[in-house]
C-alpha cells in the first residue's frame, strides 16, 4: 500500500569549517537546508540520499502545513512507494547555490554584508557531492544505502560513486548523461542570455536594487520546459487547441500550449532566483567526469564499488536513452556492478518524476535486493 508521508518540515544545519571549492575559492561554514523522511536505524545503514535536479530543492516528499502541493518526488517517496519510507531514512538537501534556504547567490555574504549575487562562485557537481558528504558526517551516516537522483540529480549520484566509493552501497542514476551535448549547452545558453539581457538583471545585483529579472527568468524557464516534455506529450496534452473558438490574428496567447508555457514561466519566475538559475545551468555544462581521464569515462569509473542502476526513458530527448547507455557501456567495460532499465514512458525528460509501474518496480527491486 502506498500513501503520503504526511506533513513535513525543513531543517537547517551549519557545516562548520573551511569548505574549498573546485574553482579555488572557499567558504567559511556552509548552511544547508534539508528534509528527512522515515527513521534512521540503529546502525545507520538504511539511509538514502536524494539529489535534486536543476530547479529542484529539498522538498522532495510530503506536504508543508497549510500547503496543498506535495514535494517534487512525492510520487516515488513515501510509505510503500518506490523509495519506501517504512524501510528507509530518506534525506534530501537543497544544494549550495540554491535559492530555497541553503547558501546561495541570494544569501548574505558575511564578509561584505551584501547579497552574494553575481559574486557567488561557480560551483560544480563535485562541490555539491563534497558538501553532501559533510552533511552525511553531520547526520552520522558513514555509508549511504543509496544515493539517487534524476537528471542533474543522477549526475550527483554518479559522482558520489567514484568520489566516495566506500561511502555508498548503491547509486541510482536516472535520466542522466555523462556530460552535456552541444545541443544541451545551446539550450542552456539561450536560457542564460534571456536572463543576462533582462534590463532588470542589473549585472546580477537586482536584489540590491530591489529589482527582479522576471521576464528573463520566465523566458529561460519556458525554453527549458520545452526540453522537459516530449513531442508526443505536448501533442496529446495540447495539440493545436485554441483558448478561444477561433484565431484572432494577434500576438496574445491563442494556442493552449502558449498559454501553458507562459503560465509555467510566470509561476517559476516568482519562486526561483535568477542567479541560481544561471549557476545551475553552468554546473550542468561543466559536468564531464571523463575530462580528467583523457576523455575516457571507463577510467573515471575505475574506483567505483557500488552497485549501480541506470534508468532512461524512451521519449526523453534532453538526455535520451543513448546518453544513459554511454554511462552503462563504460561501467560494463570497467567491469562494475551495473543494471540498466529503459522505461517506456510518454512524458519525455519529466518521466523520471512519474510513478510509472515498471520504473517503480525496478527502483524498489534495486533498493531492496
Amino acid at each position, binding site marked *: 500500500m502506498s500513501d503520503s508521508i504526511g506533513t513535513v518540515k525543513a531543517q537547517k544545519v551549519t557545516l562548520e569549517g573551511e569548505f574549498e571549492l573546485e574553482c579555488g575559492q572557499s567558504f567559511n561554514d556552509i548552511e544547508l537546508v534539508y528534509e528527512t523522511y522515515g527513521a534512521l536505524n540503529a546502525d545507520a545503514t538504511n539511509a538514502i540520499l536524494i539529489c535534486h535536479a536543476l530547479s529542484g530543492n529539498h522538498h522532495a516528499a510530503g506536504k508543508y502545513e497549510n500547503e496543498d502541493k506535495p514535494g517534487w518526488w512525492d510520487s516515488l517517496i513515501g510509505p510503500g512507494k518506490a523509495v519506501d519510507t517504512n524501510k528507509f531514512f530518506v534525506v534530501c538537501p537543497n544544494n549550495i547555490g540554491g535559492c530555497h534556504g541553503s547558501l546561495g547567490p541570494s544569501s548574505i555574504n558575511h564578509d561584505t554584508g551584501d547579497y552574494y549575487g553575481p559574486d557567488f562562485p561557480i560551483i560544480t557537481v563535485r562541490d555539491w557531492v563534497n558538501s553532501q558528504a559533510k552533511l552525511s558526517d553531520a547526520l552520522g551516516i558513514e555509508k549511504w544505502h543509496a544515493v539517487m537522483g534524476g537528471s542533474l540529480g543522477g549526475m550527483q549520484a554518479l559522482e558520489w560513486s567514484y568520489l566516495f566509493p566506500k561511502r555508498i552501497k548503491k547509486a541510482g542514476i536516472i535520466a542522466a548523461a555523462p556530460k552535456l551535448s552541444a545541443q544541451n549547452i545551446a539550450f542552456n545558453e539561450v536560457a542564460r542570455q534571456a536572463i543576462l539581457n533582462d534590463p532588470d538583471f542589473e549585472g546580477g545585483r537586482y536584489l540590491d536594487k530591489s529589482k527582479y529579472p522576471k521576464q528573463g527568468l520566465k523566458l529561460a524557464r519556458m525554453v527549458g520546459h520545452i526540453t522537459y516534455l516530449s513531442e508526443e506529450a505536448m501533442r496529446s496534452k495540447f495539440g493545436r487547441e485554441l483558448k478561444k473558438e477561433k484565431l484572432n490574428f494577434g500576438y496574445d496567447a491563442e494556442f493552449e500550449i502558449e498559454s501553458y508555457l507562459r503560465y509555467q514561466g510566470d509561476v517559476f519566475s516568482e519562486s526561483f532566483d535568477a542567479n541560481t538559475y544561471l549557476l545551475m545551468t553552468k554546473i550542468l555544462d561543466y559536468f564531464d567526469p571523463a575530462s580528467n581521464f583523457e576523455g575516457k569515462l571507463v577510467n573515471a569509473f575505475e574506483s567505483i564499488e557500488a*552497485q549501480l*542502476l541506470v534508468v532512461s526513458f524512451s521519449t526523453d530527448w534532453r538526455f535520451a536513452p543513448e546518453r544513459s*547507455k554511454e554511462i*552503462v*557501456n563504460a561501467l*560494463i*567495460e570497467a*567491469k562494475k*556492478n*551495473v*543494471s*540498466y*532499465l*529503459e*522505461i517506456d514512458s510518454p512524458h519525455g525528460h519529466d518521466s523520471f518524476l512519474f510513478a510509472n509501474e*515498471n520504473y517503480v*518496480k*525496478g527502483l524498489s*527491486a*534495486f533498493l*531492496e*535486493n
Partner: protein
Amino acid sequence: MNTIEVIKNWIDKESQVLDLGCGDGEILNILSKEWGSTVLGVEINQDDINKCIQSGLNVIHQNIDEGLENFSDSSFDIVIMSQTIQVLKEPKKALQEVTRIGNESIVTIPNFGYWTTRINLLLSGKMPVTGTLPSAWHDTDNIHLCTIKDFENLCSECEIDVIEKCFFNKFGKESILAKVAPNLFATTAIYKISK
C-alpha cells in the same frame, strides 16, 4: 545431468559470465550462488529484468537484434545464449557476436529435427505445435528454428569450433537414444563453442 549441471561442468568456477537473453536470471542466479561466477545478463522483457534486479543480478535492458557492439572482444570468459538464437532476426550474426565477446560460449537450441516434430509435420501437413514449441506459426517468437544438423553446419560455415556438445530428451535428461541419433531423438542441444 540437466542443462544447468552441464553448464557448470563446462565452465571454471569464478568465471566472468554474460548471458544474452537471460530471462528471469535462472541460470545466472545458480552460477553466481553455486559457482562463484561474476555475472551479467542481457534481457529485453521488463518483467524479467525486474526479477533479475530483485535477485541482485546485474542486468542490461537491451535488444540483441539491435547489436552487441557495446561488448568488447573477449571481454567475458563465457557467453551463454540459451534458447534465444531462434528468436533473433540474424542468428548467424548473433553467433559470430557471441564467439567474439566470449573466450568460450555456450549455446542452447531447440531441435526442430526431433522425431515427433517431423511426424507431426508429415502427417498433419501443418507447422508442428509441441511442448518445446507451443505457439502457432503466426504467433511464435521462434522465427529461426533449426535442426541439430543445421546448427552444426552454421558453426562450420562460420569457422566456429564445437568444443563440447550434449543432447537432451523431452524430459530434459541425457538418454542413449538422444546420444546415438540426436537429430531425431534430442529435443534440446547444448554446445560449447569458440572461435
